[in-house]
């Protein structure tokens, strides 16, 4: 890593950038980036990292502020314009077309053809040669340009995505959580590519909240909190604890080291539950009044496990048992899990899905409709809706969860992510479930709403509910959970108790199972 003196002129600057949606997402952020520098942009989920990178890449326009590239004004109106100027972004969600080959994806904006008269004939030889060259340039071997993208592993897809954005003339490269889906070996590989780019003078903005990585790769650190840039400094000057404190805004000691909640009697027993290669013989006990976290990489089978516990999918092996409690005199065992979500719900289980837009909400329908969904039997008489009762219920839940909205008639699709998530919570809260399964409950949720959701989870544990929570945010798990289970390639490899864990031990466990023959493309997670 080279020490970069202030005397060098920056290639890229950001001056007083703000972005307002319903509320301020970014306020007055200024950054400076030199050729060959790696700037780590970090912060908690919802701190504004993604919005910042989208502004730089031209996907979103700032409300205020200016940017310059090599001394010139830079205000891209869309992604193509930014790419044209040499500012490219590798997105968190892959933007490859799975049904096309690697070569076609790499060259998608300039497919070589056979000249004027055969402009629609793709010249495969030239195409594949160009693609091979492009892959080789960043040192990727072993990916055939003829291969369909859908046949590649997630890690390889990520490398192709990177390769696609390393065209000639790239001056600023944004990487948004590039290692979220990579194995350690692939991560290592990516890092060596980044080193190579640095030598070539490409300026890199590296968005991540994996602190260990930032230490390895970044020259400069920029920390965002609630849309405000709280610190920029050379990487060597800060310790990990410092960074965390900067990200969270207060010392996290008390959250991270609060006592374990008293463990109640068993609520749900899972024995050797499995489905295909996604979930392999998972056994665990979930207790009343506790929050059990599930950590792991994307695609490690966490979402699939929750779906089995909820009856959204049927298991191939194993069984689950709802233990006896006040309402239920005898334990109830389900071989191969539930027959359907209805059965699970009837037994007092609720699921907040990972993807609230496609699996949770009726976006075009009102808050009231979404809140009462699944409880209409209680709100209706002889099949007739009681709209007055429904509205009253929704109004009550909106107040309790402080959902920001004009009225309960407002379409859910027009709410912010955090408020949408609260509406789904509302649906399960008034059903009074005994066991609540939460899949990434705070993904895309702003900081304020997140605090409300944490408070609701806390209240549920007070009421002796059992909570099983999947999250990719280790900090969130370490803050909320009493125990954290770690999944790796479909297996539940370990369950750590509060006090036993560290970020490192959780990550090590997440990478522990070899990535065998798992077909990633079928993974839902």
């Amino acid at each position, binding site marked *: 890593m080279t020490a970069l003196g202030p005397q060098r002129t920056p290639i890229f600057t950001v001056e007083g950038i703000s972005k307002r*949606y319903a509320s301020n997402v970014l306020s007055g952020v200024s950054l400076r980036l030199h050729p060959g520098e790696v700037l780590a942009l970090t912060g908690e989920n919802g701190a504004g990292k993604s919005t910042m990178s989208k502004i730089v890449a031209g996907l979103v326009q700032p409300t205020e502020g200016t940017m310059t590239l090599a001394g010139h004004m830079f205000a891209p109106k869309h992604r193509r314009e930014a790419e044209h100027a040499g500012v490219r972004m590798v997105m968190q969600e892959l933007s490859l077309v799975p049904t096309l080959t690697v070569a076609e994806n790499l060259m998608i904006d300039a497919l070589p053809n056979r000249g004027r008269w055969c402009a629609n004939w793709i010249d495969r030889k030239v195409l594949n040669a160009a693609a091979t060259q492009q892959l080789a340039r960043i040192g990727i071997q072993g990916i055939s340009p003829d291969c369909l993208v859908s046949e590649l592993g997630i890690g390889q897809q990520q490398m192709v995505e990177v390769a696609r954005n390393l065209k000639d003339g790239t001056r600023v490269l944004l990487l948004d959580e590039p290692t979220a889906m990579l194995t350690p070996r692939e991560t290592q590989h990516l890092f060596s590519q980044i080193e190579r780019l640095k030598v070539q003078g490409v300026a890199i903005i590296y968005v991540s909240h994996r602190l260990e990585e930032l230490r390895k790769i970044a020259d400069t650190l920029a920390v965002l909190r609630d849309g405000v840039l709280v610190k920029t400094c050379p990487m060597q000057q800060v310790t990990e604890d410092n960074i965390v404190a900067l990200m969270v805004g207060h010392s996290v000691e008390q959250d991270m080291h609060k006592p374990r909640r008293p463990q109640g009697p068993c609520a749900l027993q899972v024995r050797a539950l499995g489905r295909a290669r996604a979930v392999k013989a998972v056994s665990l006990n979930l207790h009343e009044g506790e929050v059990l976290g599930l950590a792991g990489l994307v695609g490690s089978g966490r979402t699939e496990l929750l779906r089995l516990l909820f009856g959204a999918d049927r298991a191939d092996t194993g069984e689950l048992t709802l233990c006896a409690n006040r309402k239920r005199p005898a334990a109830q065992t389900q071989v191969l899990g539930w027959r359907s979500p209805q059965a699970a719900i009837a037994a007092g289980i609720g699921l907040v899905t990972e993807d609230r837009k496609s699996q949770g909400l*009726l976006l075009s329908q*009102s808050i009231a409709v979404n809140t009462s*969904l699944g409880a209409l039997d209680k709100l209706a008489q002889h099949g007739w809706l009681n709209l007055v009762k429904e509205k009253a219920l929704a109004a009550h839940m909106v107040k309790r969860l402080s959902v920001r909205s004009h009225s309960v*008639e407002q379409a859910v699709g027009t709410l912010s992510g955090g408020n949408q998530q609260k509406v789904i919570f509302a649906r399960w809260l008034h059903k009074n479930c005994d066991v609540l399964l939460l899949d990434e409950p705070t993904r895309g949720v702003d900081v304020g709403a997140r605090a409300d959701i944490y408070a609701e989870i806390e209240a549920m544990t007070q009421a002796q509910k059992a909570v099983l929570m999947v999250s990719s945010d280790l900090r969130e798990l370490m803050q909320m959970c009493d125990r954290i289970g770690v999944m790796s390639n479909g297996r539940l490899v370990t369950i750590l108790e509060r006090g036993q864990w560290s970020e490192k031990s959780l990550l090590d466990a997440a990478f522990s199972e070899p990535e065998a023959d798992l077909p990633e493309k079928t993974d839902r997670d």
Partner: protein
Amino acid sequence: MASASTPKPTAASRSQLGTYLGLSAVLVGMVLLFTSLSDYFWSQATFVAIANEIPALLVMSIGMTFVLIIAGIDLSVGSVLALSAAATANAILLWQWGAVPASAFGLLVGLVCGAVTGLISVAWRLPSFIVSLGMLEAVRGGAYVMTDSRTQYVGSAISGLAKPWVAGVSAAFFIAIALVVVAQIVLSRTVFGRYVVGIGTNEEAMRLAGINPSPIRVAVFAATGVLAGLAGLMQAARLEAADPNAGSGIELQVIASVVIGGTSLMGGRGSVINTLFGVLIIAVLEAGLAQVGVNEPSKRIITGCVIVAAVIIDTLRQRRTSSH
């Protein structure tokens, strides 16, 4: 991330009201246009003729509205219409049944056809487009078998449906209007209607909220079958005969009426009242163009343009309300 939009509180109901007003404006405009173009259009005879023309189309459109709201489609309604009429005719002519049991039998045949379409598409998770396309062929074949490929004259046995009732308007018209009201209430005020809209909006979300979509889907197709059967009876009553070719191609007219009424082919949005407007617009257009003396080819060209124009306007309006 926070969404950029903050629309007015009652955006949904306001857009519904807007659709009503828009459709009635189009309808009134068309009536005025034809009145100015033809001396004979503005007369009781014209409106009575329209009222007696539309019941079959209208009852099928009611069913189709529900089918489109669950993001399905039923192409077999025309064939079901013919088969139900044929079954009723057979019951009267061959088995000497009375008008009431024979009609009930016709409706039952419709119910079975619709239920089969629904069951097949649910059981094998097939698009209803394909299943109902198959049913369109198969059921039409059934109608030929039942009628021996000839028009079967049933005489006045079930003509009560088509007899003038009030001011020359047949009972069928009033039945159809009553069904519109009932269907609209079912759609907007019952749990079943709520589930129908929910399934059309996001079936997976409904399933994960603990609602089994399959029986609701089957019920919607079965109801559409019954309504197509009723349409068959209405037609047979008017013609006093069961024609094996009856209603061929009418499914497209039905779909056009529903779509003009603003029901989305993508599912999740629709209203039976608006479908009534769609049917009226199609019927007024037909009658008006005929009175003005437009020939058949031009009539079809104009009708086609009106269908597409109506949907373009509706789409633009929807986009505007949802992007505020």
